[in-house]
């Protein structure tokens, strides 16, 4: 109980202090809205919220999925093949080094204002940690496990599927947890540059009208979405790979 009650109490205290400071010093709401006005402005646009949430969520999940589908096999490839790794790894490091906010406008010009641009932006933000985590997990496979598979006559593919991949699972999930969080960031960046709905759009359109209360409400919703998605990955891991939770804790 205590690990839930304590943070809730301190959050409540924080909001209370914030609220009273805003009232006490009569801070104008275009500089710092009180929590109560953030809440009120949320209620105002409540009916529109699901549309924005869904738009962002769609980008987050689609972008994440594309990243996972590309990053995991790529991670396996670069960990196992020296030539592939030498040929493409530096490029991937470079691609990852580009600040996404800098390249996003270029991508939009190239690919248009549709979902494609947002998927590419999203991919650029979140594929790297997933790929690196996968490669790390594959390379971390204990020699004794490989000896076991070799002593039973396993070939390269069998040992990849029955030893290296399962061993990499807890590593991959670490990458996925970082990736899903980054995917939310990627989606918001995409929406900042080009979109007519989504929580990122809501923030941009509210701030241009100095409606900080509404923008902050969108931020809170985004944060909640991020936490829920992170927990979602955790739940998938617990459900399908329960053994990997312990393995991860030990790392």
């Amino acid at each position, binding site marked *: 109980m205590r690990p839930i009650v304590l943070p809730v109490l301190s959050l409540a205290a924080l909001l209370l202090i914030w609220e009273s400071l805003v009232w006490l010093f009569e801070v104008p709401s275009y500089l710092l809205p009180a929590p109560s006005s953030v809440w009120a402005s949320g209620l105002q646009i409540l009916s529109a919220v699901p549309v924005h949430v869904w738009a962002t969520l769609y980008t987050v999940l689609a972008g994440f999925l594309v990243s996972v589908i590309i990053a995991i096999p790529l991670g396996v490839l670069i960990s196992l093949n020296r030539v592939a790794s030498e040929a493409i790894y530096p490029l991937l490091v470079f691609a990852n080094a580009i600040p996404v906010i800098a390249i996003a406008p270029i991508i939009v010009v190239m690919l248009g204002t549709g979902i494609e641009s947002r998927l590419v932006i999203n991919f650029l933000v979140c594929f790297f940690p997933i790929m690196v985590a996968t490669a790390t997990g594959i390379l971390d496979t204990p020699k*004794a*496990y490989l*000896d*076991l*598979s*070799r*002593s*039973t*006559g*396993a070939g390269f593919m*069998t040992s990849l599927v*029955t*030893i290296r991949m*399962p*061993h990499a*699972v807890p590593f991959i999930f670490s990458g996925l947890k970082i990736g899903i969080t980054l995917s939310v960031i990627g989606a918001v960046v995409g929406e900042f540059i080009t979109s007519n709905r989504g929580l990122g759009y809501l923030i941009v359109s509210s701030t241009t009208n100095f409606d900080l209360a509404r923008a902050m409400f969108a931020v809170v919703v985004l944060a909640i979405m991020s936490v829920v998605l992170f927990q979602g990955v955790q739940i998938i891991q617990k459900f399908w*790979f329960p*053994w*990997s939770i*312990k*393995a991860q804790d030990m790392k």
Partner: protein
Amino acid sequence: MKDVQIESVSKVFGADGDNVFTALKDVSLAIDGGEFLSLLGPSGCGKSTLLRCIAGLEKPTQGMVTIGGGAGKPGFDTIGLVFQSSNLLPWLSVLDNVLYPVRVKSRSLVRQYRDRAMELIDQVGLTHVANQLPDSLSGGMQQRAGIARGLVMDPDILLMDEPFSALDAMTREELQFELVRLHHETGKTFVFVTHSIPEAIFLSSKIAVMESFPGRISQILDVEFPHPRGLEILNSDRAIEIDGAIRASIYSRSSQHNSSSKDI
């Protein structure tokens, strides 16, 4: 029952680099079918390397290992391997771990071998945990599962690399009894690596004593005690005699070592 012939095997690590190290030099050893042979020697003398050469995990730099008189590579179901740490895969249940060698051979065989695997699990007393993951098991139970896995393909030869060295003394004794029984019941050829002299005497029908720098066999001793054996054989005159012979060959060499280093 297959025999193992080790003929003038040498193993040099890093032969093409700077760190040339001769782990085995000109090792010859004949292991009869059905024998319980222990490789005994101090740490670093090449016991594991020799075992890995028999298992086909390491290729001798010189010489060769022949199994069952057959030329060419033996099938992988000729040999079962038991590791020092149990080396169970943490993502598989005990049953699936025991079935792992079957899974590698062919996925479609797994169903067919289930009953055999369960039987082996029963023999090593793990039926109640067959569906649990290995990390919920004690060290002794894990090592039992490792032995069951080594036996699942019904190999002719079971190779074990210090399988009990990580266990507490009591569990160790218990498993030694079970191993003797298992050897007696299956009649398979067992090759057992250890650095414990009493363990080697209690278990073996033959002991190959090894020395280091370079790794080689210094002495081969027959241990003729009849089965079933009890721990009291360790107090018999013959056991004390064997023990003395082993210690003499290990320590005489290390004292030679000391005196020669003093000379320098």
